């Protein structure tokens, strides 16, 4: 994968393979290209060169919403939620495929009622699973930063078959106890539903206990990958953090 912003090489021939059904950690100092990579995988940016293969299918030329429908879900560093919707609705919104989504079919209740009912039921189960059920009727303005992160985790699970969830710093701005809670929920989802995760995280001490694999980036390149402990102790990684 190659991406340049003018003279800046944001991604310089980055090649990654995210193991299916695992939690992969992506680390690197600021400016190493992590968020650019997340933006390219989710379709916000188009790469200058390279391909994104999702489950054997080339999705490089698909728009963001089309990738979502293929099972590629993305969360943001600062939670982005619909401010006018309550927790349950914010989660339910993420399920795609409602037969009432057409301009005409939306007016025919019979065609979408069952799907809508199942969606709300599943949203209720999902927020129970992520332990925010008691907040089901709260609007985002009434939630703490950590609760919003958990809501985003819950939302990631709503598509019928999420293949991979990209999480950008899921524990930023959250106290250590809740940060562990968030990673615990991510691991629960991963273990029980076999959903693949790619997680960008700066709090390595917390993240390392929950992930299966790790990539480290610096100056737009992958400098190490493998077992999380091994990557963290790699001299090139230590140098990139100290030097960066």
């Amino acid at each position, binding site marked *: 994968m190659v991406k340049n912003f003018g003279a800046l090489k944001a991604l310089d021939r980055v090649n990654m393979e995210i193991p299916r059904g695992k939690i992969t950690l992506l680390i690197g100092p600021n400016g190493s290209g992590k968020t650019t990579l997340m933006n390219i995988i989710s379709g916000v940016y188009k790469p200058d060169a390279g391909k994104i293969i999702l489950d054997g299918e080339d999705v490089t030329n698909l728009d963001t919403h089309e990738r979502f429908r293929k099972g590629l879900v993305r969360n943001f560093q600062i939670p982005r939620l619909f401010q006018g919707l309550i927790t349950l609705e914010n989660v339910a*919104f993420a399920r795609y495929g409602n037969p009432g989504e057409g301009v005409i079919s939306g007016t025919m209740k019979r065609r979408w009622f069952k799907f809508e009912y199942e969606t709300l039921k599943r949203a209720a189960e999902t927020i129970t699973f992520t332990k925010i059920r008691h907040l089901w009727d709260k609007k985002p303005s009434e939630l703490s930063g950590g609760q919003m992160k958990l809501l985003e985790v819950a939302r990631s699970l709503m598509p019928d078959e999420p293949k991979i969830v990209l999480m950008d710093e899921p524990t930023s701005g959250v106290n250590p106890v809740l940060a562990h809670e968030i990673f615990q929920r991510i691991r629960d989802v991963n273990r029980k539903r076999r959903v693949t995760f790619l997680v960008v995280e700066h709090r390595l001490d917390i993240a390392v206990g929950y992930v299966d694999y790790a990539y480290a980036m610096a100056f737009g390149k992958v400098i190490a990958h493998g077992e999380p402990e091994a990557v963290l102790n790699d001299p090139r990684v230590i140098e990139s953090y100290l030097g960066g």
Partner: protein
Amino acid sequence: MGFLPNGTFVMASIAYASALGLLSMGLSLTFVTTRIANFAHATIGMIGAFVLTLLVDRVYYTGPSYQIFITAPVLSFLLAGAFAVFMYIVIMKPLADRGNGVTELMIATFAVDIILINILSYLLNAIRGVHIPKLIGLNVSSWDARIHCCGVILQASYIVLPIAAILLTLAFHFFLTKTKFGVAMRATIENPDLAEVMGVNTNMVYTVSWFISGGLAGVAGSLLAFSLKDTSPNDSALIIVSVFAGSIVGGLSHVYWGLIGGFIVGLMEKLGTGLLDNFYNQLLAPALGWTSFSMINYEKLMSLGLVVVILLFAPEGLAGVDWGKYLRKIKRRW
């Protein structure tokens, strides 16, 4: 109270205000979805006036007909909506995709406006009337049915326009709140990036918003044409001032407030100016021995003056005012 305007004038003012409301609502819709201030919006509305003129010549040339109040708005909605989609997909979206900002896009809409005015003028000049020799400058008010009501004779369009504005607003509200596509549109308006990563085809939402916006303008234009002195696309140059005034008074980022803002500006322009004119010329000037003069030609001063006043006291327009606070105050007083 001899200076009060008569019923016909009041109804004409309400009709004009309703048309401005529809136009301002459409303008706010495309602004709130695609952040494009569309200066061609009133001329897109003139497509409706063009459709009406053609229908008068080809179908309803024998005289007034109530049928025209169905055919003209429906055809105008579709044609003006289609043009708005064409404008968005072929001109505005490629320009926006190439990184042009709000200013560049706004100037591009000026260019489209001038091109469209010329195309419509050319067509009205070039198309040979079948039953009416000269289409450009045609006064179509003669084809507006007359209704006898409460002792006055009203043009039917004065009644149809407010009804059309109410029905279209209700339909739009139903679309936004009761259909899944409407929910997707609201989500896109609130947070386009999030809507996109949640699987909403935001491009489709933008395109549909331009279609609706153009359609509303077309309906307003087709029915307003009955009140215009003659069918000329150049009229849009003046109407767009009031349309923007309406959107700004309402609060440019709020669709329904655009409707209210447009309605208020329309009433101020027609009814407000009429009242002021009557008050001055019939009461004040004779009493004080001052020279009388017609204020009717200065109606745009009312709308622009209102914009200045509103922006001074409510920078975000009427939508930004905490109405709940004032309502609570009133409740406490009473």
